[in-house]
């Protein structure tokens, strides 16, 4: 099913951008299959796979039992058998139920077979907080997997990146975890025109400068990109220009783009809605303090979720998650250090 187009403009939302990437790849690659809970008859809990089963058949778009470990393991086996697999987690939170099959079976396959086998597979699902999803429908658990060698990790923040990175992920010979930000799925303000064909492709491992600036570098991904852009507006009112880098891919990480920015701004704030301890923000800080120390004029800082689960009701949720205010404040402290 083609992306639903706005009747007045040709802008596409984040969800339809993902759908068009999956659809196009299914059309291009006869060896690609999709597995997940409720992805066929229903078209997915959020509708990312709507229409795909009618178009490609039940054998290529398969409704799976509520068995995350089997979804991953079967996908891995199908990939061993020559298929390219898109496996959906209904919510990325449930990925924990398939953890062993991801980190021990799938992630290590290439390594332990000394390169004989590779597993072309994308595990994707809706992620992130700020939507009142409570503890088990709000997670950003990418750090678990960043700590498991053999997995690429992607998290787009715009429709064109959603499409372009999904195409790259589905063409990558390795397992890729694809974190979709469900709060962005249907957000009208971020809809944009998409490129067609190969022009739509966004390579893995390349960061995007979402806004140029000279006084501080805000490094982030996912939903926090939009928070950082708002914080940059606030900073501009204070007379400072912030550069916002959307890393887009966590593994592999585009360190060069961040380092180049730090050479210019000399100040670093990393923003990430996952919990602080051993979160990916810490990884970026560690790498930049070791690799770009000489460019830094102030201690690098991070704004993350508190080390708590994500609570349900709004005031509590917003209290623990990074906010535009917290980002602005931290950036100001870093600039004025």
């Amino acid at each position, binding site marked *: 099913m083609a992306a639903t187009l706005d009747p007045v403009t040709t802008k596409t939302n984040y969800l339809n951008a993902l759908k068009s990437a999956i659809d196009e790849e299914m059309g291009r690659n006869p060896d690609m299959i999709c597995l997940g809970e409720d992805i066929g008859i229903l078209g997915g809990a959020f509708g990312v796979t709507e229409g795909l089963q009618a178009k490609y058949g039940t054998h290529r778009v398969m409704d799976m039992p509520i*068995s995350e470990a089997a979804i991953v393991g079967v996908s*891995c086996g199908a990939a061993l058998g020559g298929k390219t697999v898109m496996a959906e987690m209904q919510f990325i939170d449930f990925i924990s139920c398939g953890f062993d099959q991801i980190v021990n079976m799938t992630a290590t396959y290439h390594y*332990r077979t000394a390169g004989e086998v590779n597993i072309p597979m994308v595990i994707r699902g809706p992620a992130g907080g700020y939507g009142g999803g409570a503890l088990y429908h709000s997670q950003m658990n990418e750090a678990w997997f960043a700590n498991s060698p053999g997995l690429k990790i992607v998290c787009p923040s715009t429709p064109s990146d959603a499409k372009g990175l999904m195409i790259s992920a589905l063409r990558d010979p390795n397992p890729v975890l694809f974190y979709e930000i469900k709060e962005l799925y249907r957000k009208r303000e971020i809809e944009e025109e998409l490129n067609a064909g190969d022009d739509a492709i966004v390579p893995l491992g390349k960061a995007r400068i979402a806004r140029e600036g000279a006084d501080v570098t805000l490094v982030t991904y996912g939903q926090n990109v939009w928070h950082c852009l708002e914080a940059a507006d606030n900073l501009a009112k204070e007379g400072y220009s912030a550069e916002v880098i959307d890393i887009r891919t966590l593994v592999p990480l585009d360190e060069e783009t961040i380092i180049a920015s730090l050479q210019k701004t000399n100040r670093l704030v990393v923003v990430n809605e996952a919990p602080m301890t051993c979160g990916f923000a810490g990884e970026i800080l560690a790498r930049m303090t070791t690799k770009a120390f000489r460019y830094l004029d102030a201690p690098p800082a991070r704004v993350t979720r508190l080390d708590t689960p994500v609570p349900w009701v709004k005031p509590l949720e917003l209290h623990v998650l990074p906010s535009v205010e917290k980002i602005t404040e931290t950036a100001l402290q870093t600039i004025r250090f």
Partner: protein
Amino acid sequence: MTPTATKTKAAPRKLEPHQTPILARDLLTPEDHRELLNQLYLARYFDVRLIKEKKRGRLRGTLYSSHNQEAVLVGSLYGLEPTDWISPIHRDMPAFFLKDAKNGWRNPERIGMSIEEVCSQVWCKVTSPGRARDNWSHIGSKAKRIIHSTSMLAGTIPVAAGVAYANRLDGGNDVVLTYNGEGSTAQGIFHEAINFAAVHKLPVVTIVENNQWAYGTPLELSSPNKDVADRAKGYSIPGLVADGQDVLDVYDKVMQAVEHARAGNGPSIVECKTFRAYGHGDHDDDRAARYRTKEDVESGRSRDPIAICKIHLVNKGYLTKAEAKKYMAENKHATQTSDEDFPPDVVSYMSKGIEFALASPPPPAEEGAMWVFREEN
């Protein structure tokens, strides 16, 4: 059954198209029967030799002996098509070279591993199929159709189902045989994977090697079922029980499941009742002597699969009594056996594998950092 079929009982060769075999074994030739015995010797000798090598301190890692359980491996593998897949686990080391062995142990064309490859893995050499990156049974080969397992028990069953599913999409009907201990049937993934395979009638046959013990835990603390095969009822699939000491019974039951699977009727569980001869691994031998009484162990391993196979062969006239007594590997502790207890071609097959492994180099250290990601498509 037709009267003509009864007549064929005395000389079971190939049945006429209108005849119905009673059991899969009725289609086996005398040569097949003798080959089954030879493969039992092969599996036993492999194990015995490694037990001795391990005692001499020459091997890394843990040896999970398959002693007394060989009929499960030999009987389940013998009837497979070369292109069928298997996924052996820790106690199944001989499966790697027994796969498709009936097409010639040394036949380089056969779709199974050579003894050189398997020994290279045991001796941590670069000539191992996985270049010795993970230990012991964690090898495999896409080309040889052997799924690479991890340590996580029952973890290969969903992968087997995925392989079967991909194969079906490509128009094939290759069967995938997975191996599991009875203890591993308690894993969540065992349920998830077989449930999925049953929903889609995938040709996945799960062999449960019920050796009564899961490390230090007896069957009754692992499973509420006396017959683990009863778990199959929950998936509306066949659950067969085989005498795991009797290679022909294993062969019959597994072939029943394999034919059922290949015909598109879906998965089965085949429980093979057997008994673990030693400790869980060689590290556990001393402690195992404490948690299992001597009497239980003696009675548990009193039905040696080699001896039982010989009885079949002698009864059928495929082996003379004198021939049956020529090599006496059965009913002996590994350390009590000598090379004279095995046919010379069995000894030389394994010895060549070891020689090859010993002469091979270890993998270069820098390989430790390689192959995390596939760089290009």
